[in-house]
């Protein structure tokens, strides 16, 4: 079977499970960053439900990651469309990672994590989305390229430029 035919043959349940296993943590991290804590699980389940019901439309399994992220981004937008007139930043009601007691992280580290997240949220587009996908969700440049359908060099440039912006934001917060 040719690679093209292999990529387009119908997915078995096991394959769906394996594909989903690889991305579900990334999707979860993305939702946690985008949606208030109490709504995150609902949005996550919405994404899962939608992606499972639309699997027929995924013609090439190598595009599963961008495909499911496009669903996730649309679901998040739908969430905000339903809640407000237009998408807003998560702000104060974002998921409180610090609420989980974990002895391996000091108070300063948690504070730092929170500030980093705040600063990423305060970036302007297109830097914010790229920084979120790279630093928070943990996607690589080639993966972000597939998700956002932007040239890889542009993504690398956005990542490099977003770092000083985040650093300046941190300095402002510490003053």
């Amino acid at each position, binding site marked *: 079977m040719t690679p093209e035919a292999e990529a387009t043959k119908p997915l078995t349940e096991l394959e769906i499970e394996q594909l989903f296993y690889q991305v579900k943590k990334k999707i979860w*991290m993305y939702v*946690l960053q985008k949606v208030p804590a109490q709504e995150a699980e609902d949005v996550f*389940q919405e994404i*899962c439900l939608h992606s499972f019901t639309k*699997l027929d439309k995924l013609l090439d399994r190598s595009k599963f990651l961008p495909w499911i992220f496009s669903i996730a981004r649309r679901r998040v937008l739908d969430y905000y469309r339903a809640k407000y007139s237009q998408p807003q930043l998560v702000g104060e009601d974002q998921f409180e990672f610090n609420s989980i007691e974990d002895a*391996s*992280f000091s108070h300063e580290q948690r504070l730092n994590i929170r500030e980093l997240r705040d600063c990423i949220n305060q970036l302007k587009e297109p830097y914010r989305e790229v920084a979120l996908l790279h630093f928070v969700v943990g996607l690589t440049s080639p993966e972000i390229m597939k998700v956002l359908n932007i040239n890889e060099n542009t993504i690398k440039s956005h990542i490099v430029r977003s*770092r000083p912006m985040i*650093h300046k934001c941190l300095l402002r917060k510490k003053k």
Partner: protein
Amino acid sequence: MSHSIGIDELERIIAEMEPAEVEARYGGRLEPEAKAYFDAYCATCKDLDNLNGMLEALAPPVPQVRPKARLIPFHRRVVSLPIWSLPLTAAALLCLGLLLPQKDSPVPLEPQVQGAQEDSPVPYEPLVQRAPAETPKQNARISDAFFERGKAFMSKGNHDAAWEDFSAAFSYLPDRSSIQRKSILEEMQIVAEQMKDQGKQTWVKDLLSPKE
């Protein structure tokens, strides 16, 4: 001769290069103030690179995804059935469709009352309050259900219950001149005879009065 680099120039440089490259190319030429700024910047970059790992460690576990059976579209599940199972599936669906009570039917289509299933007659328990049916078709179906259950009661010797069900079947008849009316009245007459032997009164005689 290369000049030393201040904060302003460093800011322009770090917006275009990775920290390691900046260090390699300009590390030795940074002014003390710029060097301190660059060190702090490198610490931020390190934190950013570790951010995903730290967030993953602190985040709640990924929620359990709902069972796939509920998520996979029905047609996909049906198509994935082996071909030999299709007649069985069709038969099972047909049986379910025939045996399950209709959604808008207020009474079960099979006799459900205790007295109908036991050999010894038991007192008739009045049925729960039912909402009036809306269409003649629904009324006819309800009437049929009462009639069938009445016959089941009668065969078990529970005349009171049979009488109540035949009465209900009669009252639900949409058109009292139908053949069904005659069948019900015939059954009621038999029950009335038996109840009369037990000294009970019925109103069937009014219906079967000489004017008919």
